[in-house]
Every structure is written in C-alpha cells, then in structure tokens.
C-alpha cells in the first residue's frame, strides 16, 4: 500500500460521511457536532448517550440516522414499568397452525442495528442493566441461549437532565459502556427558523439510505488504521490521568471535586474518537487537537464527582476544561 491509498480511502470516507450528513441535514437542522459525535460513535463501534431537554430532536436524529444508514432501527421508550423482557425479548408459546404449539424466542427491540433507548434513566436499574450485556458483549442471553446481535449494533440512549423525579440515574458501570455522552444544545435563532419552516408545513421529507451496512463495517476497520503519534497518544493518556485526583497531572478542581477519574476505556474512546475526527477532517493521523476535541464527550460521563462537587453544582465539563487547559500549557 502506498501513501496514495490512505489518501484515497480518506477521501472516500469523507464522501460517504458527507452523504450521510447531507441526508441528515434534510431533516435535522444544525446540530452538526451532535451528528458528527453520533457518527463517530457509530464508526468507533461504541454507543452514544444523548442528554438534552425534550423537544430538541434527539429521537428524530436517531431515527433519521437509521434511515440514512439503511440499518434496522428500533426505539424503546424507557418507563419505570419496563422490564428486561420488554427489551430483550422472551420465549413464548406459539401455535404452529397445525394444532401444535411450540416455544419460540420472540426477539425484543434490542435486536436491531440502531437502538434508541429513549429516556433511559426512567427505567429501573434492573431494566437498565439488561441493556448492559447487549451493549458490551453485542449478544443477548435468554434461557441459557446466547443470541448474537447483528453488527453493527449501535445504541443511542437519551436522557432528560431536568426531570429527575422518578428517574434512576445510570450506574457508573453502565455509563462507562457509552462511547460518547453528547449534550444536545438548544438551537440558535437561524436554526429555529429552519426547524419551524420544515416542521410546520406539509412537506414530508423522505430520507434515503446512503450508507450500507457493509460499508459501515468497512469504515469501522478503516478508522482503526489511522496512525497515532506517541506524543498524541501521550496527550490522551495525560488527559485521562488528569481526571484522577491522586495523579500528578490532577488540577486543583480535580483534586477538590472529583471522586474517581476516567477509566482506561475513556482513553480508548478519546484516542479512537481522535482518529475518526482526523479522518473526518481529511487528515491521515490524529493530532493533539483531535484528542482535545474528543476528550470532552469521551470523558465527561466517566468522571464521578464527589459530594462537594455535586453540592456545588460543578459540571464535569468545567473540570475537564481545566484539565485540558493544563495539558495545553505544558506542551
């Protein structure tokens, strides 16, 4: 393989993603960073947690993405009475039409390429944990039988940060399974105009599938070939180490407000996200800027604030900003 091959691969990668973005843009207004983040999670083989107030188009985004990617899509609305069987599926007695009956496994909504776990924090921890194995192992075990989920398996979970009454915050172990945690922001005025224009008329937009399943899997392999220099990798490690209050890289805020720092899985997410970001931008290797850009969505949900941090309303993003700032000054 010569140097021209990566360049061509990157260009093809960019064109594919551009097509996806274009299809999404037909439905979703703005939210470019969210779209890129979701695509990053998809290409990294991870899952994405979207956090935002209701009405920002989170569900629409996920559904549109499923359509644009030509992947199976299922949506699960998490409620407190939802049980794991509702998600995973169950063995039920089935009449075979000949008078006989048999027990068959009825697949739950988790058996899809893209699963939207809407308001995931409203389900009980038991139900939430049912999603755990599927997210990590890409398989579901029911009645001692493992059912492999079809690749790509991509979970997009949403949660509302405002209505905390009657919710069950995700446990740390489950949060760690999410590749990114994206915070969906409120659209600006121009974006609001566009949203209103599109949604209050009679126009119905049909989204085409522009990226096939096989291509997605190929892109997943491609992004993992992106090289990372030692200094860039060291930056990612230092960013993760900086979130640990007992490390030398820890900043004052980390020492004061953080109980536990990010796990090594966080470093993996940062570096893999950096690779994808570099390729998205047409670069061959991941840079320090990519690491810094990916550190926030990859690490913000992997830090556990202590009581003081929680009491003072400290946001993980503030702590991470300080950590990343300290890394920049040391360069």
């Amino acid at each position, binding site marked *: *393989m010569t140097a*021209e091959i990566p360049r061509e691969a990157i260009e093809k990668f960019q064109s594919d993603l551009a097509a996806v973005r274009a299809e999404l843009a037909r439905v979703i207004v703005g939210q470019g960073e969210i779209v890129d983040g979701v695509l990053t999670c998809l290409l990294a083989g991870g899952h994405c947690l979207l956090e935002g107030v209701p009405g920002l188009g989170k569900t629409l985004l996920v559904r549109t993405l499923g359509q644009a990617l030509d992947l199976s899509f299922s949506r699960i609305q998490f409620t407190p009475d939802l049980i794991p069987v509702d998600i995973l599926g169950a063995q039920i007695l089935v009449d075979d039409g000949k008078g006989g009956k048999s027990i068959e496994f009825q697949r739950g909504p988790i058996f899809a390429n893209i699963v939207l776990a809407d308001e995931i924090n409203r389900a009980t921890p038991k139900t939430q944990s049912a999603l755990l194995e599927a997210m990590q192992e890409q398989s579901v075990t029911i009645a001692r039988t493992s059912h492999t989920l079809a690749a790509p398996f991509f979970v997009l979970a949403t949660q509302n940060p405002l209505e905390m009454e009657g919710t069950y915050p995700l446990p740390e172990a489950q949060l760690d399974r999410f590749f990114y945690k994206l915070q969906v922001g409120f659209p600006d005025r121009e974006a609001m105009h566009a949203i209103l224009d599109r949604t209050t008329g009679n126009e119905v937009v049909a989204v085409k599938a522009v990226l096939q399943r096989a291509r997605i899997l190929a892109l997943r392999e491609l992004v993992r070939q992106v090289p990372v220099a030692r*200094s860039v990798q060291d930056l990612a490690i230092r960013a993760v180490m900086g979130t640990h209050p007992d490390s030398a890289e820890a900043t004052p805020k980390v020492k004061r407000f953080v109980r536990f720092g990010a796990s090594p899985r966080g470093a993996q997410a940062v570096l893999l996200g950096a690779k994808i970001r570099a390729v998205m931008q047409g670069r061959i290797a991941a840079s320090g800027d990519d690491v810094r850009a990916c550190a926030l969505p990859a690490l913000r949900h992997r830090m556990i604030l202590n009581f003081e941090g929680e009491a003072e309303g400290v946001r993980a993003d503030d702590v991470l900003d300080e950590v990343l700032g300290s890394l920049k000054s040391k360069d």
Partner: protein
Amino acid sequence: MTAPPTHTPDLLVARAAQRRLRAQRAATAVITSGLYALTALCAAMLLVKLGAIPDRPARVLLGLLALSPLMLGGAAWTRRTTLLDAAARLDAHYGLHDRLAIAIQFRALPDDARTPWTDAAIADGEARAREGLDPAAALPWRWPWESRGALAMLALFAGLSAVEFPVARTLPALVIPPTVRRDPLVLDDDDLAAFRDMARALERDARSPDARRAVGEFQRFLDDISAQRLDREDAFRRLAALQRSMEASQRDERSLNERAMRSVSEAMQRDDATRALSDALRQGDAARAAQELRALAEQARQQRQMDQARREQLARALQPRAQTAQDESLRRQVEQARREIEQMLQRQRERQPSRAEQDLLRRRQQAQAQREQELQRRDESRRRAEHLQRELSQAAQDMLRDLQQAAQGMDRAAEDLSRMNDERQGQMSMQELRQRLEELREQMRQQNGQNGQQQRNRLQRFSQNANGRGQQGQGQGQGQGQGQGQGQGQGQGQGQGQGQGQGQGQGQGQGQGQGGGRPGGLALVPGAGGIPIPAAQGATPTQGGQQPGGSAAGGGGAGSEHDENLRGSAADLTGRTRAIAVAGQQTGNGPSRSQVIRSAAADGFANRPYRQVYSPYWDRAREVLHQGEVPPGYRSYVRRYFQLIRPREETAN
C-alpha cells in the same frame, strides 16, 4: 521499506525553529536572571561604595553576580529543547494539526512499525514543511517583561559605579609595635633619672646641630627605655647606632679646626699686639681667640690715627700664610666606593643575589653613607677655615687703607672663631655624651645580662644603703627645725643605722634614717645649705635613725652614736673635741687617695654650692675609674653611688 532519514532537508525548518527556541530561552534566562542579578549588583555596589564590604570579598561577589546571568543563559541554551517542541510550535502557529511533529515522530519509527498510513503522514508533514514555513513568524522574538526592569537596573548600576560617595573608608589598622616587649629592658628609675639629668645638662651645653641632634636621640632612647619599649637586643642596637653616628661626626673635625687656627697664628706671633691672639689660636682656644680678635678690632676702631708703619706691621701679622689643603684621599675613597657599589647593584640586577651579597652591599652602603657624611663635614670645616683666612686677609689689606673696615673684618673673623668655638663646645658635649653612653651601656649590660636580676637586687640594696635605708629594721625620722634648731625626730631601728639627712633653706630640715644590718656606715648629715656632707661615723647597735640635727636642721645627728667596731671615741657634740691619732691598718684593698677630700675640705664644704662640691668629687672618681684603679666589678658601685648623691635639679643649686 527503507526508512527515510530522520531529518531531511524538508524538515530543516523545524531545526531552525529549534535553534530559535533555544536562543529565545537562553535570552529569557539571561534577562530574567539579569534583573535579579543587577538588583543584587546595585545593592552590592552600594555597600562597596559605602565601605561596608571589604574590597576583595566585594570583587568576588560582584564577579559572581555579574556572571550568574551568563551562566544561567548558558544552562538554558544547553537545556534539551527537542525538535518536537520546535515542530509543535510551527504546527500550532500554522494550524497544521501536528503534521510536522507527527512526521518527525513517524520518521523515528523502525521499519516494521511503519505502515502506509505512517508513510502517508510523513509525506504529508514534509509537504507542509515545503510550503514556506517561517520559524521567525512561528516563534516571534518576545522580550520578557523583565527586560525593562533589567535595563533600568543596568542604568542604575552604571550610575552607582560612576558615583563616588564621600565615605570615610576604614583603613587597615596601623601595626603599632607593642608598648611592652616580651623581655623589655628595665633600668632602675633612679638610674634613668640620672641619665635624664645628664641629658638635660648636655642639651643646655650643646651648641652645634650635631650635638643637639645626638642629645635628642639620647633622650628619645631614654624615653623608650623608660616606657619599656625596647628589649635588650633593640636597646643595644640603638645604642650602638647612636655611638656610631657620634663617632662619625667627631672624627678629625676638631683637628681640622685646630689646624685651620694654627695656620693663621704663625704670623701673629711676631707682633706684640697679636701675640695673645696667636697663642689662643695655637692652643685651639677659639673662644679666647675670638675675644682677643674683638679686642684688637676695638683697638683699631679707637686708634683712628695710626702711622703707616704700624699699619703695615699689623697687616703682616694678620695676613695668614698657610692654606688648608683638601682631603683628596677621602674623596678618592668615596668615589671608588661609589663605583664599587654601583657595580654590585648592576650585578644584583642581572642575577638574583645571595643573602651574603645582599648583606655585603648593605654594609658597604652604610659605610659609604658615613664616608660621604664625613667628607661633607670636612668640606664644611675647610670652607669655614678658608672663610676665616679670607676675613683675616681682607682685614690685613683693609688695615693699610681703612681702620674701620679692618675692624669690621676682624669682627667677622671673630664671628667665625665664635662659631668654631661653638663647634668645639658641641664636640665636647658629644664627648661627654659618649661617656654617658658608655656608662649606660655598662648599666644595661649589668642589669639585664646573665644574673641580671641578682645584680639589680644588689644595686637596689646598694641604693637603699646609699640612701640611708637598710633592709633589716626600719627607722624613720623626721625633724623640722626653725630658727634655733628646734625640732623633733622619730627613730626606730634594729642594729646600727645609717642616716642621711637633707636640709633645706633656713633651718628647715628633714631627717630620715633606718637601722642597718651591719654595724657602722656612712652618714651624710645636712649642712647649712641643706647639702649633705659626710658626717662622723658611728652609731649604737640599738639606736638608729635620726636625732635632732645640729644647729640648723633636723635629721640625724652627726656623731651622736658610735660604732664599737671602730677605734676611738664617739664624737663629742659639745665641741670639746680632741684629736685621736689612729694608725692605719693594712687591709689589702689597695691604696686610697685623699687629695680631693683634703682639697675640698680645705676649701670648706659649708660655704660652697653642692654642685660645685660634687663635681670635683665625681671628676676625680671618673679619673680613678678610667685609670682602672677600681676593680671592674666595683666600678658600677662607684658610679651608682655618685649618681645617687648627685645634685638634683630641684634641690641643688
């Protein structure tokens, strides 16, 4: 796959950025540390200017402070600045997303770690490097904020260096020789007082500058001994130097003057009017010659009418014939010695002289200095003699023309003779001083030599005895009498006593006495003028001290007691005396002389000042000492005795 070189020309821009980065770091270190170093330098310079820091530590401190920024700058320059840092700066400035840094790192990878993606990244970095990246733009020269402060401190330091503060510097303490030496020469206070009296007398009599200078040196020498500033070695060295200088100044000077006077005296012998003058000149008596010449001048002034024959006779008598000859021999010696010394100095400049050569040169230089000084004195003496001859010759010529002029010429010649006389007096004073120096040397030798302490003790006992104080027993008497000799006395003693009394003035007297350990002794009783005179010997073994004095004063009564060991009866104070013939006894101690005693007794003691009585005694004693008639071990006793009974400044007259 072959790995490309780590640093290809395409990435030289990163190398240039690295050098720039190092230079900037070094400059920043120099300026930043320079600010603090200059601040410290200003403080140090201020302290130096104020004299708070000695010069040598100050130089070291200032040097270290001045060097410290350079050292820190050098350290910053040598500090490891990686190429990656420089490339990162370029990447950041040009927004290259670490392309150069990544390319540099991927170049360092081994071949088996390379992938097409890494090669593509390297190619991408090199392509970017070829786009005309400017290290100066990426790393602009930024002066640290300390620059202005450093410049201000530099200006302040320059100002402080230029300004001179009017501060009294503390000079190193002068090394003053200790007042008290480890083994100072110690002379008895009484001896020192005696020498001081002698020095004062010599000072009064000294008329020539040499004599006054020598006496002054002698007095300073005594002062140093009194203050115990000299040890034995220093004292003898000073004494020897003083004696040498006096000997050098004395040599042949007297003979030169006398020869000059004799040279002008021969013609004067022929005339009756000038014969007395001639005699005085031949005898070298300059004072009398000057007196005779002034008388002759006065005679010439008064005899306004003098016949021509007489004038011619006097002119011939006054005309000197002989001329003083120059001492060419000494002058040749001086010239030759000077040449030799110059040759020795030249040799010593050419090579390192040995210690012996240095000593020899020093001795020759000292001898040369003495010779030149002597030659100078001889020239001065010769000029004086020539001046005298010229004055007399001029007076002789004037005698034929104008008597007044001749008289003035003779007066001038008399002045020359007076100066010669002063020199002669000075020479006599110097001679006297030399004798005193010899005595002082003897005192020093005896009192501070081996067994010096014993000798001092013996002399102290002798002094006490001579002063009338014994070692055993104490007797003290004090009597005052006025008018008719009324007085009272106290006496207490053991054994037989010696007494000495001093009286002063109109019947007032003071007596003092102590019992002595030995029977017999010499008693000096106050005379009419308060002058102690030897009194009769004898005292009872049990009664010492003084009794009311004679008719005029208190003190010890002469002959009031009797020594049983002596023959004859005690003196009868009632005046009913009788002569006792006492046959002499052979003691084996040699002859005794009684001439002076007899002559003095013939003149009478009572009606002469004590100083006049003392001097013949002391002169005779010196004569005896000089002739060696007193054993050497006892000479000091004789000298000391006469020192102790010398007429004091405050009492004798």
